[in-house]
């Protein structure tokens, strides 16, 4: 059946949880692209047939015409599906910049294809250019602040001479600190600290 592979591709995308990615399905993607080209060849041969029979392309309404229309529509549908696949993935990749930061962890990197990796880098650079022009970091402060200070626990060693706010902190694993929320947020998003609530 025409267009089935493309819809499988999208089903795979929509069955993911929001803002989660699976590896780029290169095989299926390639299959759909191949299908597109087959449709195009069929379409062209039908059009040629209509012409050879000496009929007017605009007004002919015979079997060949409707065959051609079906190939045209299937091709268009496949295109929409492929574009939706690539575009929606790109949107998730954009949102990673906000949630994870400028450097993606290895396990996410592995799920992107070459063009997507490049897109992430480019998009991230565009955002950084905007922020540096404004001289304001927009990726911190994602939730409304309640208290200027929060209690955090270190999940990993960061270093014993980190200077924040004119104070030297000894950031070793499992130690607990009271930090300014704005200072701590960058570490939390990198997964180096966790906030202790209550």
């Amino acid at each position: 059946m025409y267009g089935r592979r493309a819809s499988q591709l999208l089903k795979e995308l929509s069955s993911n949880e929001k803002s989660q990615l699976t590896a780029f399905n290169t095989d299926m993607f390639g299959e759909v692209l191949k299908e597109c080209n087959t449709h195009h060849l069929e379409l062209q041969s039908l059009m040629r047939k209509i012409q050879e029979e000496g009929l007017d392309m605009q007004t002919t309404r015979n079997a060949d015409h409707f065959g051609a229309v079906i190939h045209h529509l299937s091709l268009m549908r496949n295109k929409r599906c492929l574009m939706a696949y690539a575009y929606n993935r790109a949107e998730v990749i954009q949102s990673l910049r906000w949630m994870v930061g400028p450097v993606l962890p290895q396990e996410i990197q592995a799920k992107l294809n070459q063009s997507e990796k490049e897109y992430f880098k480019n998009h991230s650079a565009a955002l950084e250019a905007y922020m540096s022009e404004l001289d304001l970091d927009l990726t911190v402060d994602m939730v409304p602040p309640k208290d200027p200070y929060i209690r955090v626990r270190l999940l990993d060693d960061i270093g014993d001479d980190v200077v924040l706010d004119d104070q030297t902190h000894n950031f070793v694993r499992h130690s607990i600190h009271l930090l300014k929320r704005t200072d701590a947020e960058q570490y939390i998003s990198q997964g180096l600290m966790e906030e202790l609530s209550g």
Partner: protein
Amino acid sequence: MELGSEEGLGISSEDYDSLIATTDVELLKRAWRNEKASPEILQFQTSLVQRSREQIQLMEDTVEEFPKNCTDPLTVSLYQMDLDRMLFVLRSYLRTRLQKIEKYFIHISKSDLWNRLSDQEQKFAKKCTDYMEKHLQRSVLSHLPYGYQSILRQSISSEEDDMVPEPRLDTFVFCKSKGSVGAFQLDDSGDEIVDLVADDLYVLRYKSIKSLVESGQIDLV
């Protein structure tokens, strides 16, 4: 940032309300709420953002001065909190706008919404468009047969751009008017007319009150 209590200043509560409603903090909060609730991007508040940033800078300097003057730690922390909140609103405002641009850059750059962006946002939108085009070109479009390679149109036989994501303007929004707007016509046919009373809450289609939001007569909440 807050003014003292009304008794302390000896002004009537009405004056106080109108005074509070026109401080930059309130204006920024209003712009932020509108931007958050509206499906499409609104006019960038150039001078308001400029003023807010200057005030934030001033507050940061003040807070930094405090420890040297041995001010009460509680006072410092209150100022710090106020500062943090204002910074949050400002960041969230700019962020909400960027996220709309990320979503609808093609639609924005083709329509007169383009003029609503700040210079920096326009630069950002341009880059977004370039990179997304490059990415889609490389992964999908360049592999498709001739006639189907446009990013804007489904195929060469489409008469207009039919592949551009657009915000849904007929979505419902909550809104509240500050002053009485009076009878307002919701659709072109004139069948539906709503009497907008001050401070009443309404749920209406964004499309129909778009002009009131743009002129500032009504606020989204």
